[in-house]
């Protein structure tokens, strides 16, 4: 017994997921998925390529793509969980339904945790990683190896969540993990520990990412690219990065202190011993509110790019948009209390924070009007990214308005903890963050892989997301106003039933939307020859990322560009000097691949898993491996690789020859196979 305990901690046969058919099924899917991936890699002999070209790569573009892959996999899992919950509530009128309360609680906890930390965050970090250095005319981020470490930490957290499907049960404490419920007294299992360590791993990664992005934007801009000439997406990335640097520590503190309570018997948030759970709530939302702006600002950045590109106009009110982003970033540190208006502080405190919250509506409103004005009298094309942007514009306004309602403490006392809140945050997060990231995916996919995504399936998918969202979440406003508490597994109130049925229908549409996204990818890969845009500029883009080949060379720019104004590439095109040939080429230094990332990733999983299950040797080993890997890395002497000028020149000239041979297309042919990525300058 004690040997077993020393070797395997709390692990036992009862950790296997045979307590319900659905849990067994989910675990089997994870295991089968992993086996299929391993078998496939072995069959195609792709292990070496995977290791050399991807896992150890420190190229910001590949790291970005890997982040997005993680996000899409996790999106699939969490979306299925959302659909399961909707199905449960649809049938659970006056009966138990098919999920036990415990299982239902695991589902909303994993769904929320995954959607925020392992879907939305990796998605936006991936997109920024891919796009931002290209937009500022840099060859990579400031710290490429650190970038790969951050990715590995995020992946380790996601892996821990996947393992939790197979071994043991996940937390039932929701995505916010409030004590005292999550204390050892009420949640003695390993679930909360899984949650703590998965979050800790990813939040360390995110802090480092924020640092990396901020330094990159401050120090690595191309000559001439002053701050007030930066594309709006870069501004959004900068503000998000700053928020990451300052908002992740509160989360780290909250979860670490909770861990001390659970592992060392401390009394930070317990009922007895002088503990105070309100401390946790305060710390959590010190992180939580800036977090929602970490999520939404990059989406705002994407929409700014999309509106201006697909209207063929410079953004309306550039300066006001910049000020608005910065105002939102700073204000987001002043409103966290609106997540706990009902916790017992005085009316004076509540009103101050309520007013601060409403103030955020002002810069947000400015942005909405600027985007509308950008389209006014533009040459608007309704391609897929713009469709997402339009859906966002309308639906986000509705979600924002319900937020203004909630910012009023009086109203909040009424609908607090009902599904009204669930409706509100899905209403800002799905049209805002998810649509933003899907728009980014459609917009920059051709840049990353050299071919466009199928337009027809893209439209179908966009229509399904929009309709599904409306059907799934508008009923929740009604239900919330009627009083249905959130996180409810079953109910006896007949009036709720029709609305939960409608919402379940919406969830089915959302599932179809995800499926059509996958179909679109398959169809596009099949037709990649007809969709190819090797010249690199399929949308008549306005910023520097469109001025290089698709996919871009490893070093991004053969020679670093000079920037003399906003919308640098659009300026060059209208001056009929889109692709100025460089006078000479130089050797380019790029960082070598490094195994540090994967090593830290493995160490992270080991440490997290060991801590969760009280397998101390494994936890210790993980920590030692991490420290050892960092030290070993500091002794590596050759960290740089040189691509000689002749190679650069040859590659660049080949691309220029292609530019000369491809037809330049008008915007009417944007979605036709004639579009090879060379844009005909607009006759102004």
């Amino acid at each position, binding site marked *: 017994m004690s040997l077993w305990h020393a070797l395997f901690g709390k692990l036992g046969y009862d950790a296997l997921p045979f307590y319900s058919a659905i849990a067994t099924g989910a675990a089997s899917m994870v295991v089968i998925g992993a086996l299929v991936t391993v078998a496939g890699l072995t069959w195609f002999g792709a292990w070496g390529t995977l290791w050399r070209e991807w896992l150890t790569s420190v190229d910001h573009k590949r790291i970005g793509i890997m982040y997005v892959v993680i996000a899409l996999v996790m999106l699939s899992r969490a979306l299925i969980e959302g659909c399961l919950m909707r199905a449960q509530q649809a049938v659970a009128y006056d009966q138990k339904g098919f999920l036990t309360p415990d299982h239902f609680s695991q589902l909303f906890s994993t769904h929320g945790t995954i959607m925020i930390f392992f879907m939305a965050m990796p998605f936006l970090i991936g997109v920024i990683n891919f796009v931002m250095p290209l937009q500022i005319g840099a060859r990579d981020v*400031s710290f490429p190896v650190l970038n790969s470490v951050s990715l590995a930490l995020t992946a380790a957290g996601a892996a821990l969540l996947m393992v939790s499907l197979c071994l043991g049960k996940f937390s039932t404490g929701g995505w916010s993990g409030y004590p005292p419920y999550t204390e050892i007294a009420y949640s003695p299992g390993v679930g909360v520990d899984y949650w703590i360590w998965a979050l800790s791993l990813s939040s360390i990664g995110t802090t480092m990412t924020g640092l990396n992005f901020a330094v990159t934007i401050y120090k690595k801009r191309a000559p001439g690219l002053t701050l007030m000439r930066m594309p709006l997406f870069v501004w959004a990335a900068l503000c998000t990065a700053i928020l990451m640097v300052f908002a992740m520590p509160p989360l780290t503190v909250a979860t670490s202190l909770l861990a001390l309570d659970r592992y060392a018997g401390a009394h930070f948030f317990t009922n007895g011993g002088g503990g105070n759970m309100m401390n946790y709530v305060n710390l959590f939302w010190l992180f939580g509110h800036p977090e929602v702006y970490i999520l939404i600002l990059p989406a705002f950045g994407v929409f700014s790019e999309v509106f201006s590109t697909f209207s063929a106009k410079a953004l309306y009110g550039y300066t006001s948009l910049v000020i608005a982003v910065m105002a939102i970033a700073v204000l987001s540190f002043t409103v966290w209390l609106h997540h706990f208006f009902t916790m017992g502080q005085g009316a004076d405190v509540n009103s101050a924070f309520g007013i601060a919250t409403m103030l955020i509506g002002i810069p947000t409103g400015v942005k909405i009007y600027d985007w509308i004005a950008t389209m006014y009298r533009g040459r608007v094309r309704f391609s897929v990214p713009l469709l997402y942007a339009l859906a966002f514009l309308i639906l986000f306004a509705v979600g924002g308005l319900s937020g203004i309602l909630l910012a009023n403490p009086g109203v909040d006392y009424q609908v607090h903890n009902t599904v009204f809140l669930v409706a509100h945050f899905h209403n800002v997060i799905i049209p805002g963050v998810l649509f933003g990231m899907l728009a980014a995916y459609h917009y920059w996919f051709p840049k990353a892989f050299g071919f466009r995504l199928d337009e027809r399936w893209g439209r179908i998918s966009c229509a399904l997301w929009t309709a599904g969202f409306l059907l799934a979440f508008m009923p929740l406003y009604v239900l919330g106003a009627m009083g249905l508490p959130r996180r409810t597994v079953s109910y006896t109130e007949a009036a709720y039933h029709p609305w939960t049925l409608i919402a379940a229908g919406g969830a089915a549409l959302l599932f179809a939307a995800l499926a059509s996204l996958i179909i679109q990818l398959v169809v596009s890969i099949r037709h990649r020859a007809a969709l190819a845009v090797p010249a690199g500029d399929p949308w008549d883009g306005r910023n520097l990322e469109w001025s290089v080949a698709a996919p871009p060379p490893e070093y991004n720019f053969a020679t670093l560009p000079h920037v003399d104004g906003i919308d640098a590439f659009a300026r060059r095109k209208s001056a009929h000097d889109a692709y100025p040939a460089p006078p000479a080429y130089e050797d380019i230094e790029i960082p070598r691949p490094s195994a540090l990332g994967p090593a830290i990733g493995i160490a992270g999983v080991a440490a997290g898993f060991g801590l969760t299950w009280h397998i101390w040797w494994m936890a210790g080993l993980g920590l030692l491996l991490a420290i050892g890997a960092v030290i070993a890395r*500091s002794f590596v002497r050759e960290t740089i690789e040189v691509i000689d000028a002749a190679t650069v020149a040859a590659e660049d000239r080949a691309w220029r020859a292609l530019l000369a041979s491809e037809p330049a297309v008008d915007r009417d042919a944007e979605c036709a196979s004639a579009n090879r990525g060379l844009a005909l300058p607009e006759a102004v």
Partner: protein
Amino acid sequence: MTASATRRHPGLNLDHGDEAAQLQTEELMFGFWIFLMSDLVLFALLFATFGTLRHALAGGPGPQTLFELGSAAKETALLLASSFTFGLATLSMKHEHATGAVLGWMGLTLLLGAGFLGLEVHDFVSMTDKGGGIDRSAFTAATFALVGTHGLHVTFGSLWIVVMMIQVGLIGHRRDDSPTHAAGRRKLVDRVHNRMLRLALFWHFLDIVWIGIFSFVYLGGLAR
């Protein structure tokens, strides 16, 4: 190159000759400052947690019983001295004193840091012995968390000093030591310099956090 053109980032400046190396240094230093500021937020919140829980004794012993003024004073002296000796280590690196001098100051810093950690462990043990272990009350938990996090940082800093002593020993710290294979060597030496600069920031930063700890945790708790 004039001094003002090369002294661009805060922290000690080693006056690297060429522009590229200087830019590299600035990027690294700026990144490290951002890390420190993120860390500072973490400490600030631990301080805030301590501040809100400092009276939550739950019937257990309070600061007057648990803290020792003498020990806190010795810790403060050790850490202050170590900040000074590390400053001398970077100075003798900058002015290209003998490798032995650099290593000597670093070794002394390491000893002082180890002494500090030893006293801290002694404090924790004696607190626990007096019935004020981490699991006694919210007050003891908050104390252990705040002081312990600082201690962990000092531990990592000490490990970092060991690694840097090895690297200074292996690679040296003078840019133009040997005229053969100069370019490659210079890069390595630059890297050693950059790491030392960041380690210096880290070490001095920990001293600043300690000012908060001895003032508000120990002295604030013991004042009558």
